[in-house]
């Protein structure tokens, strides 16, 4: 009598425990209202539209990896890659997209991680707005950037850490590297997205006039498009680091640059978790939430800021897609194989003889 009762209670408790594990109360929050809202969209529409296309690429990637793991390699490296590079990037959407509608099932798997990305993407967009606003002088831009960062960090449940994270968090977990090894074209495309997303900050901060900024942004966008026909050869072979691609921006706004590197790193981590068949489907949510916590906290796998800069440069600018401004006509020739893992200590010193200088 007691045993059936225990079994019945257990039968009730297990679904309740499962439901509790799925009960999430993450919520959205409005962007920081300011006079510079949507300035980048007005002043640089071609670049702004590309970011809408990037949102689509990120979202469809996760949706396919989660819902069709068996078919994902063929789809992502085949039809979907072609669709993205020949259709979506050629005629990017004019409005920011609702990612829930593109990745409805992934969004249900990890709404917390999705919300972290959306919150960081809002910061991305608002930083462009500030830097593109010609009404703001340098001091005013610095003040607005500080305000953006403060508002971003007012959501500790969503905000990426402003402490740089060691690449080991991305490259040395049991599930690491699955995406870059199994999906070289799509992985390269994602890194090219990230190259442009951080790279565009550089012409906006180094341009000395509105005309220079316009010309610089146009050149950086053209450079991104130059990468596409030679895929994956033209794409970065390593994750682009903001301190390497946009060094002036990263020097002036290091905390924001670190947030974006942590964001882009976690993008890769989630791709690995979803792509790696050794992570059981029932555990993928837990692994994603673990990674999300690690990228939010200020303690896990932290580097010094100087070490982050040293590591970023040590990985080799030419391996990360090259400079975003003042580049030569030809794409840079990488010095390392695609997706190679290089290890660094917290001061950015190379470990294990993987320094790229050859």
């Amino acid at each position: 009598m007691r045993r059936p009762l225990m079994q019945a209670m257990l039968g009730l408790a297990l679904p309740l425990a499962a439901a509790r594990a799925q009960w999430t109360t993450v919520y959205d929050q409005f962007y920081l209202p300011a006079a510079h809202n949507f300035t980048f969209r007005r002043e640089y529409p071609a670049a702004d539209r590309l970011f809408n296309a990037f949102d689509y690429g990120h979202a469809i990637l996760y949706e396919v990896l989660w819902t069709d793991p068996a078919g994902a390699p063929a789809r992502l490296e085949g039809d979907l890659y072609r669709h993205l590079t020949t259709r979506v990037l050629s005629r990017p959407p004019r409005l920011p997209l609702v990612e829930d509608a593109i990745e409805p099932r992934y969004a249900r798997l990890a709404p917390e991680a999705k919300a972290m990305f959306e919150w960081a993407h809002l910061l991305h967009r608002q930083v462009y707005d500030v830097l593109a606003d010609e009404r703001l002088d340098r001091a005013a831009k610095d003040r607005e950037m500080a305000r953006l960062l403060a508002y971003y960090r007012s959501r500790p449940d969503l905000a990426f850490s402003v402490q740089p994270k060691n690449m080991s968090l991305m490259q040395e977990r049991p599930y690491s590297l699955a995406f870059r090894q199994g999906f070289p074209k799509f992985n390269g495309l994602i890194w090219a997205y990230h190259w442009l997303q951080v790279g565009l900050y550089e012409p906006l901060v180094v341009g000395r006039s509105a005309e220079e900024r316009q010309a610089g942004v146009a050149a950086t966008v053209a450079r991104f498009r130059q990468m596409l026909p030679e895929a994956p050869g033209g794409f970065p072979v390593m994750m682009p680091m903001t301190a390497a691609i946009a060094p002036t921006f990263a020097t002036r706004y290091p905390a924001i640059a670190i947030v974006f590197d942590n964001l882009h790193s976690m993008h890769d981590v989630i791709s690995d978790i979803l792509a790696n068949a050794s992570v059981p489907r029932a555990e993928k949510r837990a692994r994603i939430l673990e990674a999300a916590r690690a990228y939010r906290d200020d303690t896990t796998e932290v580097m010094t800021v100087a070490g982050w800069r040293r590591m970023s440069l040590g990985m080799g600018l030419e391996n990360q897609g090259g400079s975003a401004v003042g580049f030569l006509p030809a794409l840079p020739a990488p010095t390392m194989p695609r997706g190679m893992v290089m290890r660094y200590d917290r001061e950015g010193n190379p470990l294990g003889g993987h320094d790229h200088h050859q």
Partner: protein
Amino acid sequence: MLTLLARIASRAMPALLAAGASTLGAQTDFYNTDRARPLVTEDAVVIERRAFELQLAPLTLTRAAAGAYGWGLAPELAWGLAPRTQLGIALPLAFTDAAGARPRAAIAGAEVELLHQLNAESTTLPAFALGVDALLPVGPLGPARTLTTVRTVLTRTHGWGRLHLNGAWTPGDALAPGDAAVDHAARWSAGLALDHTFALRSTLVGVEATVAEPLVDGADAVWRAGAGLRRQATPRLAVDAGLHRVLGGGSAEWSLTMGAAFAFAPARMPGFPRGAR
């Protein structure tokens, strides 16, 4: 006088009912549907924290079987005052233009609504929201007493689209037959909607079926069907249109809704760090 108002209401207010009568529940983009924008059945996702949404010209045109036309306008403002919680205020206006009668416009109550989303949707759980709203006796076409309604909203997302289930219940005595709100107040109502999003076009289309029992003794439940579209026009402006028809339990009528929602947030509201400008 009361008879006249009741007649006007009987022609004008079904338009508001078809539009959800109380059109609170603003959202900041086309994907998060509001009550009556474009379908009566809404999703369980509330407006973002600290966001405001102004419903611009949310218009309803109704054609009753007798050929009488009614117009409804329900300007509203919603505010994401707390995480997953929104407060809304609406002031429905009704216009009538029936053959042989003088056109008439009047306020049809004032509505205050609180909607709280309990959770975000996950792999196993739909999103749930609970709401309470009060339609206050304001204006010639408002109810004779405050009508308080509690409601629940559920949203489940699938690969093809989303399914929404709404239910509402209004406690208290039945309204008198001559009450101005008699044609849109319901003892209970339920709605089931399906929508699909064309993500790259920032456009949503949906269909629904609803049923509502009027808050009058002995009245039959009214069945309606509807279809609607909502589209993002600019990053801050969403437009919508819907078409509804009574299928049973009431006089045959069509109604058309159109509207636009503008999202914003005053920079000086608490919670936003102060800037130099």
